[in-house]
């Protein structure tokens, strides 16, 4: 866990340094005014100092740490940083966003729900999953598209025309 956190902080530190290097791209202030670069510069310097100190102290801690010998069987297995299901959930959500651009809300959403139910190890009958997917899609499309006149992704071509039937 400590190594992962160290990497997380390291990535943040690198991002802060990158942004700090781009501060000079922001136009300088008018005379007598605090320009648009001052505030982000204060925040970024603060972050660099905080993250720098934090990374160094954590790195030293990791180096000093000695493996603790526990009696066999007593040590709980460390929880993995992420499981395959976590990665698949993020990938599936990403695929859903891409699907929204092409297929639109009405087609992409039931497909997403059905596949996500499988990912969540939903034990119900596949037809039940299909019904849930379609029902949720129609209710959301009706509430947001018809009742509140909020735009939902329409997709392209024939899928776009199809959404005009609903909202």
């Amino acid at each position: 866990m400590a190594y992962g956190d160290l990497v997380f902080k390291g990535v943040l530190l690198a991002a802060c340094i990158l942004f700090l290097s781009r501060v000079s791209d922001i136009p300088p202030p008018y005379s007598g005014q605090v320009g648009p670069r001052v505030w982000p510069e204060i925040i970024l310097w603060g972050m660099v100092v905080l993250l720098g100190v934090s990374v160094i102290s954590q790195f030293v801690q990791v180096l000093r740490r000695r493996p603790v010998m526990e009696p066999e069987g007593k040590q709980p297995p460390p929880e993995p940083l992420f499981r395959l299901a976590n990665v698949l959930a993020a990938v599936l959500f990403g695929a859903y966003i891409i699907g929204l651009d092409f297929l639109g809300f009405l087609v992409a959403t039931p497909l997403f729900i059905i596949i996500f139910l499988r990912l969540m190890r939903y034990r119900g009958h596949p037809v039940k999953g299909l019904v849930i997917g379609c029902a949720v899609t129609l209710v959301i499309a009706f509430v947001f598209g018809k009742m509140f006149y909020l735009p939902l992704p329409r997709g392209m071509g024939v899928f776009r025309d199809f959404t005009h039937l609903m909202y």
Partner: protein
Amino acid sequence: MSVDHLMTGFVTALSPVNFLWMFAGLLVGIFMAAVPGIGAELGIVLAIPLTYNSPPEAVFLMMSAMYVGGMMGGAIASILLKIPGHPSAAATTLDGYPMAQQGKAGKALGMAVFSSSTGGLLSSLAMVVVTVPLVKVAVSFGPAEYFALAVLGLTVIASVAGKSLSKALIVTGIGLFLPTVGLDRITGAERFTFGIGPLMDGFHFAPILIGVFAVAEVFNKTGRKIEMIIADRRARASLPSLSEIREVGPTIIRSTVIGTVIGILPAVGGTVASFLGYSEAVRFSKNREKFGKGCLEGVAAPEAANNAAAPGSMVPTLALGIPGSGVTAIILGAFLLHGLEPGPLLFQKNPNLVATIFAGIILVNFLMLISGCWVSTLFSRVLDIPYEILAPIILVLSMVGAYTVRNNIMDVWITLIFGVVGYFMFRYEYPVVPLILALILGPMAELNFRRGLIVAHGSVFDMLTRPITAVLLAVAVMALVIPAFRSIRKSFSGRQGPAREFKQINPKGE
């Protein structure tokens, strides 16, 4: 704001459409909080898209009702599952669940409804009384004072930091930096856009909020086995009898006072209020031995306290524009979405809206008292809905919420990115609330910092030594330094502890 305004507020809140919004908000708030893993905060976040095209009165009546309903709804899961619907309902499990095991789940639910409504009602009256004088003081504030207020609001992170203050500060830094991306609000200069068109508009806080709250929560629960054992499936909530009310009356009043005061203090919130209410109930009780085994007072005390904290926390939010908790930060964000800036100006420009919110919070507590038993009986059945079904629905609603902010698919990608970031934040124990507070307060702090310096002719010293500014900043520094000092002292004593123990066990140091 006068009594006439308040009366107008009641009339507006009771108009059929607004009343429907309010009732819907109450139902959704109770529903969301009743399901463990969703909670009132997530419920309000997911409801944000519904508010885009709706009148502000209806929006804030609904959100206030969701907040109030959410505080009560958490008790349903606490009583029936021993899993708090939200952290502030944790104390309710101590006596609520034993009551359910004894077959008295209906009684416990009824007491939760009654004490929540009474606590909320009394606290909302106090909210009206306290807010108006506070606004009169805040009217004289200039940019320097607002900057100091924003800084004070940000020091709330010290209280919500959790295990590590440094992690909370890192998250705050991210939250302060993100709103700087895009066009500068004063000069129109580009900042960190890297020539990418959609970044000109900057990051909207709603997709980030939805990502770290809703999407991260689902990602985190994916692949985990979630089992829930319901103590009493056929529970029917019933309001307490007169003799029972007489018995728990002093406890409810005591907890209401505690909850209201704690709610007004930034960041202390409902969780502390409920546990303090519970511990004071034990201290004052003649039958202390009954606590923890399923007594009515043990349910009434935390529920009255956490519901009293909700109107209390609206005081700094409405009067000063400083959110005291995660939920009020989200509500503050909804104000900004509608082009409204909470604080003294809101009371001057939109007194009817403020009066409607006040009236709505009072009315929704009445409404909860009348309908709460029926609603909580109904929603105790939602505990049967497996999380496997709720998870994809939450993701779809998250997508809709992010997309409808600006009709831009890029915002949905931002939601996904922050969902992943939120997942890692959860895994490495970075608190989320400081990020939200910084996202909301960051632009306010920057704008007033720069305006304050213009007024002070560029002199930081002149700006920060104005009397109110100096006092507010001194309080802010103390709020940050004291917990930091405690945490350093704790870590030092923690380091010495095992070493001492080791020397005692092994004097030779081998």
